[in-house]
């Protein structure tokens, strides 16, 4: 056995001896321009790949990400006097000398000789420092090992042997987001991360599952079925609660409960979020508070009562407290919406909130399946808002008790909402529970996991509080800008984001990763199931337990 393979076995393959190029100019804020060595083919470079830069003067190792690739010429006149297509000599001579490639590298971390762990950069390598392709060992060193709190979410581009491990402790510590166009795999990535959170036990999750993607089996465009969280965790760590029992049963979902909301439990604040969806004007929205105050807890039932005009309502109109037209419009809009929602029941059904809260407190994650109601955005907004307001209030209460040492700290909770821009748009984010949670950070142990295809619709302040951003392909400029709001050096990363593959690739940056990384996300397949359930993928008994209850 030769010496080199033996060393490779111990230390991994050595970094290529030949540098990709040299640092030519740049700054800490804008990144570095690297002139590509003519020996390397520009067409083999790719944004999102890692490089290592050896500081010429200090020997500090810098880790960076290729964020742009460009063609440059030493003489601006080249565009006017290009070599003839059949002039082989000139073409070969010009390439690399007169016409050359440059890489834009965003330095992210630096590692001094006497340190074990890289840390965020405070300086940049000097002119002519050599830039190398990062080896698998370099990248693995940055992202560490998978353990109880570090969850394998994918592999860097072209480095299938290297795991990118998400620091789940930090992920749940602050609100996070999964963004991407429709059809880019947001739900798969979200489900993967949620599986990691459930497995780690670091937090309970409450998932408002609009499209029935998380709880039970889900099919992709080709009709292939994938397991939901309830199937992965059959030991009670995940419960499926449904709003639409018939649909859930028709889909074969195993459900653990049904959520109903009593009309008497609804408050004007719950309905206010629906103003734009129901077409309530500002005057009508304000009138809801007045009506609730005057009519009491059964205000909605009384407003929708078909047993003729109630005396009290007539008295309000007669006394000029409310305009008949306003009242009529509210009633019409209520009647067109509430009766269609089968999960709304007369009277009070507050035990549903208790049930969900109890499960979350015990460390059980709850997937709230909307069934067919997921097609009605107003239903989704109503339920998510209703439940979150009440559960958040309980967390605040518990946290305050814990501060006074009268109760234990509430278990961290991650609330997953889809179509998040409906809850967090600049018009409403300032006064909704979701805006409040996003701004509170981890003050009350409740954070959000926002899943959205239109991050530009989310208020800037909320976006800037999102700690970890997992972003699949986005091609709308406004959405790309939004994803990077509050991120230093984001300009360069925009190019990376805009060039992701449409499937199974994501840019992860922020609180839970040491540096931005483009990953090919982990396959959601039998190996994944096996790693989550701890049952070998190939075993016969595993096959049965993986696919059925």
């Amino acid at each position: 056995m030769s010496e080199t393979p033996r060393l490779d076995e111990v230390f991994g393959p050595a970094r290529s001896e030949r540098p990709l190029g040299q640092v030519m100019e740049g700054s800490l804020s804008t990144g570095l321009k690297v002139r590509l060595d003519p020996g390397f083919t520009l067409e083999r470079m790719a944004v999102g790949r890692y490089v290592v830069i050896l500081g010429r003067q200090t020997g500090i190792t810098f880790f960076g990400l290729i964020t742009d690739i460009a063609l440059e010429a030493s003489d601006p006149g080249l565009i006017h006097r290009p070599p003839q297509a059949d002039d082989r000599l000139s073409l070969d001579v010009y390439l690399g000398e007169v016409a050359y490639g440059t890489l834009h590298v965003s330095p992210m971390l630096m590692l001094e000789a006497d340190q074990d762990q890289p840390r965020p950069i405070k300086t940049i390598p000097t002119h002519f420092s050599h830039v190398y392709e990062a080896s698998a060992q370099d990248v693995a060193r940055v992202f560490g090992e998978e353990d109880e709190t570090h969850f394998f979410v994918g592999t860097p581009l072209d480095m299938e042997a290297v795991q990118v491990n998400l620091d789940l402790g930090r992920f749940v510590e602050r609100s996070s987001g999964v963004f991407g166009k429709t059809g880019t795999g947001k739900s798969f990535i979200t489900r993967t991360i949620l599986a990691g959170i459930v497995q780690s036990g670091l937090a309970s999750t409450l998932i408002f599952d609009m499209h029935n993607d998380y709880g039970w089996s889900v099919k992709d465009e080709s009709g292939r079925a994938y397991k939901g969280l309830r199937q992965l965790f059959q030991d009670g760590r995940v419960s499926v609660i449904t709003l639409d029992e018939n649909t859930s049963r028709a889909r074969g979902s195993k459900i653990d409960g049904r959520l109903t909301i009593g009309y008497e439990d609804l408050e004007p604040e719950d309905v206010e979020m629906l103003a734009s969806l129901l077409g309530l004007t500002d005057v009508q929205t304000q009138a809801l508070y007045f009506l609730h105050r005057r009519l009491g807890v059964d205000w909605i039932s009384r407003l929708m009562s078909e047993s003729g005009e109630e005396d009290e309502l007539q008295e309000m109109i007669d006394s000029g407290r409310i305009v008949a037209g306003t009242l009529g419009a509210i009633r019409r809009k209520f009647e067109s919406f509430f009766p269609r929602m089968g999960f709304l029941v007369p009277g009070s059904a507050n035990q549903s909130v208790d049930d969900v809260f109890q499960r979350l407190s015990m460390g059980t994650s709850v997937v709230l399946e909307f069934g067919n109601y997921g097609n009605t955005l107003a239903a989704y907004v109503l339920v998510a808002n209703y439940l979150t307001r009440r559960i958040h209030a309980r967390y605040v209460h518990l946290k305050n008790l814990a501060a006074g040492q009268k109760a234990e700290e509430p278990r961290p909770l991650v609330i997953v909402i889809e179509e998040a821009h409906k809850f967090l748009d600049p018009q409403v984010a300032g006064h909704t529970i979701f805006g409040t949670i996003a701004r509170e950070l981890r003050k009350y142990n409740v954070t959000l996991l926002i899943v959205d295809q239109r991050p530009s619709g989310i208020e800037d302040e909320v976006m800037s509080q999102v700690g970890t951003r997992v972003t699949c392909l986005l091609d709308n400029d406004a959405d790309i800008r939004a994803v990077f709001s509050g991120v230093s050096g984001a300009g360069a990363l925009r190019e990376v984001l805009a060039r992701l593959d449409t499937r199974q690739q994501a840019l992860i940056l922020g609180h839970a990763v040491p540096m931005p990384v483009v990953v090919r996300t982990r396959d959601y397949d039998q190996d994944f199931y096996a790693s989550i359930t701890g049952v070998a993928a190939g075993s016969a008994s595993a096959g049965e337990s993986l696919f059925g209850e």
Partner: protein
Amino acid sequence: MPETTGPIGRITRCSTQSFSGAVHPSALSRPAFGAFCQAEDTAGEIKVIGVIYDLRIEDDPLARQMAALEDLPAEQLADAQKNRQAPVEFSALTVGYEQGDRIIYALPPRPPLTLSPVFLLSGQDLLRFTGEASFARLILASPNLPSEQLLAAALRSAIAARPEGDRDRYQLLAGRTVARLLAGDLPRLENVLGALR
């Protein structure tokens, strides 16, 4: 000793930047524009290497009179061209020097000695000196010379000195060296490459 079949002539005028001399009548067909040549300095410690950039024959009254004749007898023409001592002069631009085992692509500390014999560089000496095309820098930096044409001619002679199978590689290597030097001056680079093809 350099691999030549003898000196092509002797130096008559020199400086650290260039040297000129007269060509022996027996060697009239050997020096060429762009050929590498060498001569030793006054102390005999360094070999100064140049590229011939000019070959000329000065006129004189007899030559002018003969040229004016309408019917110049063939015998007289042959006598004037072959037997008469009309000196052929050459000029070479210094492009480096050899000191001990080292080749240095820069101007030498001292010029060659007057009347020193001048040899054409050939064989292994030529391959060794032109192994790098760094001599191009001094040629391109020379004012008042047809530097692009001279460089192309010098490169052609360096290419021709190499085995057939190595010529393309060397041509590309040398071309890239020149491209690096003329990266900001495309017209001159085009001139060199155009003359090299």
